[in-house]
């Protein structure tokens, strides 16, 4: 008989069915149990940033790229919330479910496969991005900082960027020997992205090589570019590059993370 050990270790395209949705539903149910706590940070955080940086620091600056500073950082806050919510959902959140709660073990005892569990987690991470960034978008709108009807496309950017960050996060989860491990990607990847992706100042002010690194390797740069264009209506050709970048990177990490998790969990 054919042994399946080699099959499990081989890299493959995940076989997914509608059961991905069942895993998503489980995470959604938990989220809704504690929705008050979940809605609070994405509501409060952008208000603080808009006041402190946008109004406070912004008063010292004439304008950035032809717009008031508060308008410049508003889309960044939306994109940062996409990154943070999905990345932390699929690192700390998924790790807790996998390791401490044994939720994945419980689910794979049913007709749902491990690949579908991970895919469900990734789609849920993307959903968290959608939820959080929509709340931030609402705050930004309430500050009167949305100036183009194209903002209606932001949820789309949010979902796919979220899927990308979630997939990258899940790769770290597959490598994590313990929960403290996530300090490394948080400080070595998330913090640099938070600061260096054209978020709080234009990338053009940085040395060339930093700009190249930011555009080539930092996913947040592209989420910021797209969000900024859609919220202000100032469409630029660089947005096409960002769409292609996200569309190319997301499936790679999506498939990679499922394979890595399978390798970790199915021994």
């Amino acid at each position, binding site marked *: *008989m*054919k*042994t*399946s*050990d080699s*099959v*499990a270790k081989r890299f493959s395209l995940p076989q997914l069915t509608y*059961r991905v949705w*069942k895993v998503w*539903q*489980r995470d959604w*149910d*938990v989220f809704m*149990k*504690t929705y008050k706590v979940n809605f609070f940070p994405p509501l409060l955080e952008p208000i603080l940033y808009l006041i402190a940086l946008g109004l406070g620091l912004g008063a010292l600056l004439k304008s950035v790229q032809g717009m008031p500073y508060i308008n410049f950082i508003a889309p960044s806050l939306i994109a940062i919330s996409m990154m943070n919510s999905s990345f932390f959902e699929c690192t700390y959140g998924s790790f807790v479910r996998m390791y401490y*709660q*044994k*939720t994945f*073990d*419980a*689910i*794979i*005892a*049913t*007709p*749902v*496969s*491990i690949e579908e569990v991970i895919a469900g987690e990734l789609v849920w991470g993307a959903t968290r991005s959608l939820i959080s960034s929509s709340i931030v978008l609402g705050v930004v709108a309430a500050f009167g900082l949305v100036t183009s009807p194209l903002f209606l496309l932001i949820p789309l950017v949010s979902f796919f960027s979220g899927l990308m960050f979630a997939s990258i996060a899940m790769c770290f989860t597959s490598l994590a020997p313990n929960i403290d491990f996530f300090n490394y990607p948080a400080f070595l990847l998330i913090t640099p992205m938070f600061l260096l992706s054209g978020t709080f100042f234009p990338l053009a002010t940085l040395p060339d090589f930093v700009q190249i690194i930011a555009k080539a390797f930092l996913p947040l740069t592209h989420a910021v570019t797209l969000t900024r264009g859609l919220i202000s209506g100032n469409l630029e050709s660089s947005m096409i590059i960002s769409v292609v970048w996200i569309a190319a990177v997301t499936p790679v990490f999506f498939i990679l993370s499922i394979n890595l998790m399978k390798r970790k969990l*199915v*021994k």
Partner: protein
Amino acid sequence: MRAYAIGGFGRSLMGSEILIKARNLTKKYDDLLAVSSIDFEVFRGECCGFLGPNGAGKTTTIRMIQCVLPLTSGSLTVSGLDVSQEQREIKKMIGVAPQEDNLDPDFSVMHNLLVYARYFDIPKSEAVKRSNELLKFFQLEEKRNVIIDQLSAGMKRRLILARALINEPQILLLDEPTTGLDPQARHLVWDRIRNLEKRGVTIILTTHYMDEAAELCDRTLIMDNGKIIEEGNPVELIRKHVGEDVLEVEYNDGVMKDLKEKLPEARFEVVGDRIRVFTAQPHGAFESFIRDFPTKGATIRTANLEDVFLKLTGRQLRE
């Protein structure tokens, strides 16, 4: 082939339908042979126990049956389906109660069952109906809206069993179903397991408690170091390996000499300051010994499965 079945111990399994069949089943990790080329069958409707010290390969075997652990080599079929090929079909007919608590801590008792039912595509109304029945069956009705953290260990265990039954499985895999429970909870669980067996559910359980195996199992497979070293009905195994009675006396050289003289065919085991004496002779052999040589602290007790287990697997600690 199965003498006990003809001999009338337990239920006759001759001619029963084979539900699970393993041939040369092997599971190897990098440098560890967890399960080493074992053969076994599980028959429809029986309660089959896997016994063995820690690391014997019991849980590994269970996890291969439930299709979450790939085989290294050999074959394993459940209801004729290959575990490496038809995992979804097999998982649909199996209920699993794992060793570890993997209930969803964020949900109430009822919600745990309903979410689990969803993974099996059970429609909501049917899931509610089954959940209500299961909560009643396991005496958890009053706890239906309680969050998992507030349940006792016994309640959690019952809920895990209830959850394992949500898909009305033909086969129930119970990995140490009563570990850590108080006697009351334990007896309730036993009672429910027997009840399920009567309803025709095939049950496979692992346990460290020999009384539990003797109480519940029609047949036990004793594993050690990844191999099945003995198999049979508990009563039959006890008779075969340790006889009917066991004599225990306090150790001293005089007693030992008397014992060896009087019971030349007996097997002696010295553990600490106690001597255990096993004999193939029927009841009465020890009574006459005690009569002739009144010894301090001598007791005669019925032989049990634990005696068999320790004889076969030794007393060395496994960690």
